């Protein structure tokens, strides 16, 4: 029954603006105010106004087990955002569920634009970590669905506890040691220092021994392997290709993949991986980044030190997570990765700009079921 994996060679569509106004922990600004500021940043990038937007997509879901999932507090629905921005009756409005991330929104945006449902689509991913900003505890008494097999084991109730055993399995099945993962941490935290948004921008880069000796409530995974919960909103503006040509900083969507099709990301766009100088790879947990390097065919797990070296800017090797990734910036659920890929293609990454960028990738989620995108400065044939 398995359908063949799909790669979309020319999905059509472009990202003409992206922005995250602030990353806060603990939050001192409400989520609606964060959203307005981020949308304004994305529109400024596109040299557009609120009046241009005629479609809204959001993911009104907070991943914290103790979240209230209350519109206007810790989540923002597309309906709420349309009112928040006084957009009136937009032509298209859609809420996506908890399984989706930023690049999934872009994929759906391509189809919405291609169908002519709207002309300028606003994608919003609000993330709210609360006033305290800590990891939540769940106090349920009954476990249902898949959780009936995990919750009572003390496994399924929070991300890091479950992922800790998966992290152990990841290392075991590849013959890696924890020290082999350290380049991921070093790259993230060093690059975060050049990102004004990053939660860890002013923090020193942990040394290898600090990483290895970090006490952990869920060893062998450590807190340094986990992205930190933050509050922040990523906003992205999409248009069809023809309209994007009239904007100042378009990033054209060259290919999109999900699940088993990631190895086709580059060939679907008719290019070679070696033509891509910069990759923004999802790192909600450190080992996911290694998994993405494997899934995209960019590196093997035993050659990470060479790939994940911030000094690569001095030579031709690719740069990874120039903004610090989720491990350096904070948990925006893939918003930061897409935003940085757009900024690199648009030539607007400031001090972080990699020279001569023609293409950039971004990925979201786990390699096994997440999504990847290839952006380019040209729309392609």
């Amino acid at each position, binding site marked *: 029954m398995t359908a063949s994996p799909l790669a979309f060679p020319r999905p059509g569509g472009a990202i003409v603006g992206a922005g995250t106004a602030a990353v806060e922990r603990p939050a001192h600004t409400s989520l609606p105010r964060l959203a307005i500021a981020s949308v304004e940043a994305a529109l400024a990038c596109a040299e557009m106004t609120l009046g241009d937007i005629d479609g809204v997509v959001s993911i009104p879901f907070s991943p914290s087990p103790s979240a209230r999932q209350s519109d206007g507090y810790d989540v923002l629905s597309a309906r709420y955002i349309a009112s928040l921005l006084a957009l009136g009756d937009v032509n298209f409005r859609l809420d996506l569920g908890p399984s989706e991330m930023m690049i999934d929104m872009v994929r759906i945006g391509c189809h919405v634009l291609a169908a002519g449902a709207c002309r300028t689509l606003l994608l919003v991913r609000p993330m709210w970590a609360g006033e305290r900003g800590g990891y939540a505890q769940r106090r349920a*008494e*009954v476990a249902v669905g898949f959780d009936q*097999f995990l919750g009572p084991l003390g496994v399924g109730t929070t991300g890091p506890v479950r992922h800790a055993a*998966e992290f*152990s*399995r990841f*290392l*075991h099945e590849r013959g890696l040691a924890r020290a082999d993962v350290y380049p991921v941490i070093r790259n993230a935290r060093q690059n975060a220092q050049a990102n004004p948004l990053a939660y860890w921008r002013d923090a020193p880069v942990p040394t290898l021994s600090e990483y290895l000796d970090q006490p952990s409530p869920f060893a*062998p995974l450590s807190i340094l392997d986990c992205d930190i919960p933050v509050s922040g909103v990523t906003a992205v503006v999409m248009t069809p290709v023809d309209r994007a040509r009239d904007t100042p900083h378009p990033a054209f969507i060259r290919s999109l993949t999900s699940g088993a099709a990631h190895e086709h990301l580059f060939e679907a766009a008719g290019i070679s991986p070696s033509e891509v100088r910069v990759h923004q790879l999802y790192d909600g947990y450190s080992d996911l980044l290694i998994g993405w390097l494997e899934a995209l065919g960019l590196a093997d797990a035993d050659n990470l030190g060479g790939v994940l070296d911030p000094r690569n800017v001095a030579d031709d090797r690719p740069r990874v997570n120039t903004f610090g990734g989720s491990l350096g910036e904070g948990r925006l659920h893939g918003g930061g990765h897409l935003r940085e890929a757009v900024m690199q293609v648009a030539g607007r990454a400031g001090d972080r700009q990699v020279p001569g960028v023609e293409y950039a990738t971004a990925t979201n989620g786990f390699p096994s079921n997440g999504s990847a995108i290839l952006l380019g400065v040209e729309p392609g044939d």
Partner: protein
Amino acid sequence: MSLTPQPDDISEPYWEAARAGRLCLPACSHCGGVDFPPYPRCSTCFGEVTWTDVSGDVHISGVARITRSFSSADLEIPYDVMVARLDQHPSVLLWGSRPAGDAGFHPGDAARVSFRDASGWPCLTFVPRR
């Protein structure tokens, strides 16, 4: 506090067998695939499934030691979480937990499925196999 499972019309055979100390999983009559967690139909080919006792022989794939309470599960801190592959169906990953003891598991260890009582429910765990 405790966190107890709520069986449903999909999972009932699993819990009934677990209470008797047996590992029973849905096996596909068409492709032979085994699922865990269970689905009403085979997750590979949508074939009809028959609940079947399977060997609990596993190899441990990953181990984590939890030293802080994150949930209301009936477990003393510290405890170990293990993920293991069934020897006869390596695509099936099973999760288990146990109080942290002197003889913890390591990835690669041979083990066998067992069930321990937690608030009256059979909770999946592993015991060493030599």
